[in-house]
């Protein structure tokens, strides 16, 4: 029986291998890509199952223990995020296989679409591998390399659509990404100089308040916040996410921003949690509030569906930053759990929304929100998927986002800093507003709808619906993910189960 570490290695090695093969044998991508996606999902499942049995693991790559070598740290947080990546990634992959086969179908512009497919798969698999590597790694510099792969492949995927707007957005994204990584690397360099260590778990025990530590934390955070697109550094996100191809948008919004967000949570919630004063957490919290308001207002003003969804990402990311001060205030672990629910639920819901928007675009030939009346008649499943995803984004029970908001609300009320909770509620109402703007057009009955004679493969419709329903029902099965979290707790409050050399 393979153990947790074996599966963890598979999670990195398999997508890398398939990315290479997809590049060399580009005629076979339509088989190799989905195959790799399934293998990834199996590996993630295998890792989760064996993690449940055997608990958190440290795996020394090359047999070199910390501090010399790079270690995988497999704890509850990373397992959950990998499970999230696997589910979302698999759905997006299925969607993408339908998407590209559909578009390659008609003879017009066949070469172009074949080109897109041939490069989509290797880039996406590299991105996937980098995400896995990032979630698994315990080493700050190794994480820099994975961040760099994530950023570069995300940029390249964005520019794949070939549209001028997409290329400009990709350019901007790339520059932001470079700036972010550079700042992050600077932070890592200073930390290394200060403590002579790159492993996060060891670092967490060594950190002490020193000027250099403050500066390096500021640099790390600035870099990561740029990549996460926290308000007011979100300017690059909406055009990039809105102009990419549909499966790419789903990946970018659902998964890629979560990578740097995860690191911020690790750093602020775990590594530096012991030395940071409460006041330091107010800044991300306040910026999160700004993001919630600004993102929602911008989303309300958009005329195009994909822009609306992209701005909603900006708003939703705000919640996770509002959670930071609450993580600090909370004595138990419910704020942590809340953030994780928000992240997982957002990944599923947002990917589903972008996938649905892609199908709608292909069918209607445009994505102007006001002209979508009656699309339900031609794309019932997709419309339903969009609405369900939107509802779970609003934080309606029993979605995962509801659990997250509920827990955060409880923490904020209990800690006396009730304004964070009120912000969450206001954010939900605003979210309801912009979801409604779309949903009222998607739900209304109006026949006949003028649609292109474009056949949308069922796999595209149903994969979106599956993700949306998953986001909606995540709350009902909240106990399982939490079990995982408690098994390998990243929380300062719990016993640290790190296996140290």
């Amino acid at each position, binding site marked *: 029986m393979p153990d947790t570490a074996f599966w963890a290695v598979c999670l990195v090695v398999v997508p890398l291998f398939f990315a290479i093969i997809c*590049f*060399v044998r580009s005629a076979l991508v339509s088989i190799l890509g989905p195959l790799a996606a399934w293998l990834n999902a199996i590996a993630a499942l295998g890792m989760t199952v064996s993690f449940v049995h055997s608990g958190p693991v440290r795996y020394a790559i090359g047999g*070199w223990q910390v501090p010399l070598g790079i270690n995988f740290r497999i704890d509850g947080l990373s397992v959950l995020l990998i499970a999230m990546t696997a589910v979302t990634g698999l759905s997006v992959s299925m969607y993408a296989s339908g998407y590209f086969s559909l578009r390659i179908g008609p003879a017009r512009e066949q070469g172009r*679409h074949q080109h897109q497919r041939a490069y989509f798969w290797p880039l996406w698999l*590299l991105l996937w591998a980098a995400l896995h590597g990032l979630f698994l790694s315990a080493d700050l510099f190794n994480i820099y390399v994975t961040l760099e792969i994530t950023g570069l492949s995300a940029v*390249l995927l964005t520019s794949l659509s070939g549209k001028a707007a997409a290329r400009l957005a990709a350019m901007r994204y790339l520059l932001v990404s470079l700036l972010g990584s550079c700042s992050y690397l600077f932070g890592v360099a*200073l930390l290394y100089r200060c403590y002579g260590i790159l492993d996060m778990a060891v670092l967490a025990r060594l950190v002490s308040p020193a000027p250099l530590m403050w*500066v390096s934390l*500021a640099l790390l955070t600035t870099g990561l916040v740029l990549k996460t697109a926290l308000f007011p550094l979100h300017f690059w996100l909406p055009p990039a996410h809105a102009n990419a191809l*549909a499966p790419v948008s789903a990946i970018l919004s659902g998964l890629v921003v979560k990578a740097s967000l995860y690191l911020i949570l690790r750093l602020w919630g775990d590594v530096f949690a012991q030395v940071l004063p409460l006041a330091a957490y107010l800044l991300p919290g306040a910026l999160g509030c700004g993001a919630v308001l600004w993102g929602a207002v911008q989303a309300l003003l958009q005329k195009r569906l994909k822009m609306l969804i992209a701005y909603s990402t900006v708003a939703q990311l705000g919640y996770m930053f509002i959670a930071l001060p609450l993580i600090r205030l909370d004595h138990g672990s419910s704020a942590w759990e809340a953030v994780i629910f928000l992240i997982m639920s957002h990944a599923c819901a947002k990917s589903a929304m972008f996938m649905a928007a892609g199908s709608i675009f292909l069918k209607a030939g445009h994505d102007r929100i006001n002209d979508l009346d009656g699309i339900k008649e031609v794309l019932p499943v997709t419309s339903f998927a969009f609405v369900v995803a939107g509802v779970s984004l609003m934080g309606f029970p029993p979605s995962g986002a509801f659990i997250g908001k509920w827990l955060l609300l409880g923490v904020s009320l209990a800690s006396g800093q009730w304004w964070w909770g009120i912000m969450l509620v206001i954010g939900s109402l605003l979210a309801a507003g912009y979801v409604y703007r779309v949903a009222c057009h998607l739900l209304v009955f109006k026949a006949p709808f003028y649609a292109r004679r474009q056949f949308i493969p069922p796999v595209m419709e149903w994969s979106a619906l599956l993700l949306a329903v998953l986001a909606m029902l995540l709350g009902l099965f909240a106990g399982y993910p939490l079990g995982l979290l408690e098994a390998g707790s990243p929380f300062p409050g719990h016993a640290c189960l790190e296996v140290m050399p």
Partner: protein
Amino acid sequence: MTSVMSFFDIMLVLALPWLGWRLLASPDLFRAVVLFISLGLLMSLTWVRLHAPDVALAEAAIGAGLTGALFLSALRRLERMQDSERRLDYAEKREEERQAPPARRRRSKPIAYGLALLLLVFFLVLLGWSLVKTSVSPGGLGPAVTGQMGQTGVQSQVTAVLLNFRGYDTLLEVMVLFLAALGSWSLTRIRQPLPEEVAAPVLASLVRLLVPLMIIVAGYLVWIGSSRAGGAFQGGAVLGAAGVLLLLADVTVVRQIPSALLRWALVLGPLLFLLSAIACMWIGGNLLEYPRQSAGAWILLIESATAVSIGVTLAALYAGGRPLEPSALEEAGEVASESGGDEGEGE
């Protein structure tokens, strides 16, 4: 001696930022790139001064040489496009002038800029102060590396870190290079040689002499990497430089390499590295845990393959795009892809 060194240090310390400032302030982009290359060489000198010969070699070959070449080629390409679109440009400029932002915004800009600058300066002062203030962890991981050198199969500490202790980093780094090649292929086709670029016969004959020499040097660098400065990246960079020279001299053979072969050459390093990482697990260790006795051989094998791929990758990056595929379909797609999206393609 010490005072001479100090003088040298101070000159370098001052020259680096000065060059950096000059190159960004230079109105001429060509000049900026040339200054960038000289900055790279100066950096390389600095690395030597700071006892980092491996980094110095890599900086000279990759940081200064290849990056500079990339910049120059991009610059030429941009200028050519601008020349052909000058008239179109003019019309657009008129259009933009009409839609110029209101004057109020312009006035507010210097204030915002000043504030941002102030913030930046404040942060830098803080940074510098904290650098001075904070005690540095002595030696970092140096002693740990020295203690474990016996089990790595190589003598050079940097190579040991790169390919053994932190081999996983290097594996991913090779993947970054692969990603860059993949990305530039996904973006554009290969650049056709410009008329003014067609090399003089003198250059061609020089290249014929130089390239075999460079290949030997590259091989030597990879070989020596296990004990002294050098290794896959440095060797690969020299190979890449050879490739660039071949492209510059427009040796027809280079452009006629079949695309499939090129693809295999690009992935040889990453693939072999990955497979040997897995093979280590097969043998019974962890990922990338070479058997202790034959670690040196493993590393040399990986380094050689990686060097070849790095060389090909760097040359391919310089070439700037995917080679022309024989199939007509791809050709049809190119046109659409290059001309940008049409209205049905808003996605």
